[in-house]
């Protein structure tokens, strides 16, 4: 059921596969010590080097010698949100085009370069960035830096490439959305319902008609506007030498001319003041589904960290309140899932965001029945402070989850956070202050945050209705 999440969140799915070493760990207490304490202070301290070249390219590096590989990622400040009206799905289509190679590495030879060196690569498009990333044995690092520079400076944008990739993208939409039950409800339809600003509220996988209408001129203009060196970050993490790596980046990227300033873009969302409801019909779905979402506090604010605690408390893990109540006690569904930024994680976005929850449930329970139970759980958090024990457990889970993201075998999780914080905040060392962000949360702050952000009037509720063969398939709300 979570297949679509894995299919889309490629980097994060990989990051979630396991734990590994990266970054230096600083601990106040030796975990192998025998003092028996269970309240020791510990945390991750990642060594971060950060510079900006004269042409505006932001460069982040972090050295970790545990495995002789190097992970490279180039993040461009172009995501779904910047797409112009009538050009939905453009950011993602462009990701595919840029994957096809460049003048020195045409027709799949860039992919061959990476794989033949013993590496793997991927790319993804999200709300606020498009990224291209690879992990290779570190002897191939300079060649990969050279190849990423060629992709940035000299991509191949031609009609043949555009036509083939349009076909691939159509098939991607088919396999992930159109030929699947529950294909896009919670990560496409629910944000479209909850958001007011078109930039946050359009179908970012793309209407097929918009994709078909994309011309070569549109594509070239999109590239010229957004794929500039001064709208990009390169990050290199792994078993590397800092000076040598920096010299390679300067040599291969340093001569790329900066592009024009980005066009102004307003992605702000108004404060929601009335609860919203929507229904979509899904002819492939055997059972109804229900999703709901609340607008998040601003990223990085104290309330944002308190929402992260509320997310843990409400929906993350078997112990969470909604899992216990909706699944174990009421038996509405087999499971409930959710989180902050379902197409990534709570760290890798930059703008308005939703905290969302969803479940596929039995037809005998309707929306109002389920939401009444949800309200009982949530209203308690809006009227009473949580206990210190609940807070501690939530922060332990957040810390464990954060280590899981930062500490993956491919280092894709770590590089994603470093590149995101460089791109959004010009401050990749922010990664070393995340745990302090959790630790500042108090029961009082959780209560105040729940009162403002878990208001029913800050919420949108979406029903997915299975359609019988003889039923009317038009939308009713």
């Amino acid at each position, binding site marked *: *059921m979570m297949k679509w999440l894995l*299919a889309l969140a490629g980097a994060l799915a990989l990051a979630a*596969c*396991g*734990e590994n*070493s990266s970054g*230096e760990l600083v*601990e106040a207490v030796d*975990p*192998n010590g*025998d003092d028996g304490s*269970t309240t*020791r202070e510990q945390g991750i301290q990642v060594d971060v080097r950060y510079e900006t070249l004269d042409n505006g390219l932001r460069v982040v590096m972090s050295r970790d010698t*545990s495995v002789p*590989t190097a992970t490279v990622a180039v993040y461009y400040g172009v995501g779904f949100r910047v797409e112009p009206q009538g050009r939905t799905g453009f950011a993602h289509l462009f990701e595919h085009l840029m994957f096809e190679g460049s*003048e*020195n*590495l045409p027709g799949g030879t860039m992919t*061959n370069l990476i794989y*033949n*060196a*013993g*590496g*793997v*690569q991927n790319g993804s498009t999200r709300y606020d960035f498009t990224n291209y990333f690879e992990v290779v*044995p570190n*002897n*191939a690092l300079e*060649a990969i830096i050279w190849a990423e520079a*060629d992709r940035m400076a000299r991509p191949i944008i031609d009609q043949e490439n555009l036509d*083939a990739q*349009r*076909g*691939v993208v*159509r098939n*991607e939409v*088919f*396999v*992930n959305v159109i*030929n*699947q*039950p*529950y294909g896009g409800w919670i990560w496409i339809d629910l944000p479209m319902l909850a958001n007011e600003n078109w930039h946050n509220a359009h179908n970012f996988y793309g209407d097929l008609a918009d994709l078909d209408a994309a011309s070569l001129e549109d594509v070239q203009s999109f590239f010229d506007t957004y794929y500039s060196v001064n709208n990009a970050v390169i990050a290199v993490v792994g078993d590397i030498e800092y000076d040598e790596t920096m010299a*390679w980046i300067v040599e*291969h990227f340093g001569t790329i001319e900066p592009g024009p300033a980005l066009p102004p873009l307003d992605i702000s969302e108004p404060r929601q003041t009335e609860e919203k409801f929507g229904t979509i019909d899904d002819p492939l779905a*055997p*059972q109804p589904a229900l999703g709901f979402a609340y607008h998040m506090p601003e990223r990085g604010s104290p309330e944002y960290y308190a929402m992260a605690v509320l997310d843990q408390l409400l929906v993350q893990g*078997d*112990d969470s309140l909604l899992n216990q109540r909706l*699944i*174990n006690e009421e*038996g509405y569904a087999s499971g409930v899932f959710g989180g902050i930024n379902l197409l990534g994680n709570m760290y890798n976005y930059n703008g308005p965001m939703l905290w969302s929850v969803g479940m*596929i449930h039995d037809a005998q329970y309707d929306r109002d029945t389920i939401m009444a139970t949800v309200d009982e759980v949530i209203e308690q958090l809006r009227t009473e402070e949580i206990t210190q024990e609940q807070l*501690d*457990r939530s922060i*332990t*889970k957040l*810390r*464990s989850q954060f280590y899981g993201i930062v500490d993956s*075998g491919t280092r894709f999780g770590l590089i994603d956070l470093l590149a995101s914080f460089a791109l959004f905040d010009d401050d990749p060392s922010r990664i070393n202050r995340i745990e302090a962000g959790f630790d500042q949360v108090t029961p009082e702050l959780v209560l105040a945050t729940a009162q403002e952000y878990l208001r029913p009037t800050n919420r949108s509720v979406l029903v997915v209705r299975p359609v019988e063969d003889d039923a009317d398939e038009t939308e009713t709300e």
Partner: protein
Amino acid sequence: MMKTLFFTMAASAALLASPAVLAQSPQPAIGEPEPFELPDTQSFRLDNGIDVTFIPFGLAPKANIQVHVRAGNLDDGDMTWLADLTGAMIEEGSAGRPSDEIALEAASMGGDLNVGVGLHTTTFSTNVLAEFGPQAVGLLADMIRRPDFPESELERVRRNLIRNVSVSRSQPGPVANEAYAELLYGTDHPYGHTLPTTEELESYTLDDIRRFYDANYSAQRTRIYVAGRFDQAAMESAIRDAFGDWPEGAADEAVAVAPNPGPVMQLIDRPGAPQSTLRVGFDAVGPDHADYPALVVMNAILGGSFTSRLTSNLREEHGYTYSPGSGITTRPGAGGYWTFNADVTTSVTGAALAETFGEIARLQIEPIGAEEGDGMRTWLSGLFILQNASTGGLIGQVAYRDLYGLPDDYLDTYVTNILSVTNEDITRVANTYLDTDEVILVIVGDLEQIEDQVTALPQLEDVPMAGE
């Protein structure tokens, strides 16, 4: 057992030849790779037969603890998913404590308790902050050794499984997989039944679950793996305390079977589907066979990598599909099968199959170029590092070796074995195992649109429909 792996990169010289068009600067050389060491592991056996392996790895203070019990769908008999229902009921409470209390304890250690039921093994796992490792072992032992099987929860758990199966049956992938497994393994073996019917799930009783548990859960069928950065002495002591007095129990008697060869095909109607979901397969061999390394490299060249021929052809050249792929599925001591899978645009279903058979034929006839063969061997060597660069990955690799009874040095010699596969070996195994006269084919799609395209293919002329 510490071994060092060196990659002999004969490939690197060939990689330097890149096109010299519009070169801003030539491609930098790729030098010799650094050696990669698998982490040193420590193993010991408890008196009751439980094998324990520690894999110290990484810098994060976490312990990834997995208990693998050899009880899975292979042991279902004719009660499909009884293993799943048993696993789900074990999560409902143990040692007199309800599931919510157990979940809270696990969460306070920074982990979730996960139960995963597979064909051969049910895996109980948690990934906790290392300081809680010994405590987590106790919690896992309670689950595995002292499940309460509360009758009050059975109907809800049963409904969860019924709901999950109904969602699977609405997705083209699981529908194709179910039919494909039945063609491979027939209707008389658990391997041939991937999904139960609602009626089957409704018929299982608490007595069935208890019987399954008693017959299949025992010390003799259990292995424990811990990977991460943790206190080994404390962990060993916790494991001995928690599992040491579990009776040895009965031995594993379920028998793995090899797949049936084709030719056979099955077309399943999904009216209006914009894509056809394809499974194209052949019976093959497993990791205990001398041809296996060659089969692994052959798979990578044909469809098992992003640079493979089928990906280049169907996706990059033609835009027929988004995510084509191929792989080898193995069974302990009973061979395995190779499968190509893809979801292709409905209107080009026949064309995509023709290209697929064409690529198989090309691999069987044309010699493989030096650069392609060297590149794939190097890629698989690099991939081996990535597969072993996480605690979960390391446990997976070691557990696979153990389940299949492979030699202790299987992982240490893996890269050497891959690098010694010759291009002639690849051509040979493509001919041996991808015999199109024995193809097994499943298509889930809009038959009104695709049936003529498919049956017109000359390669399928003599392939009978399933059941005929």
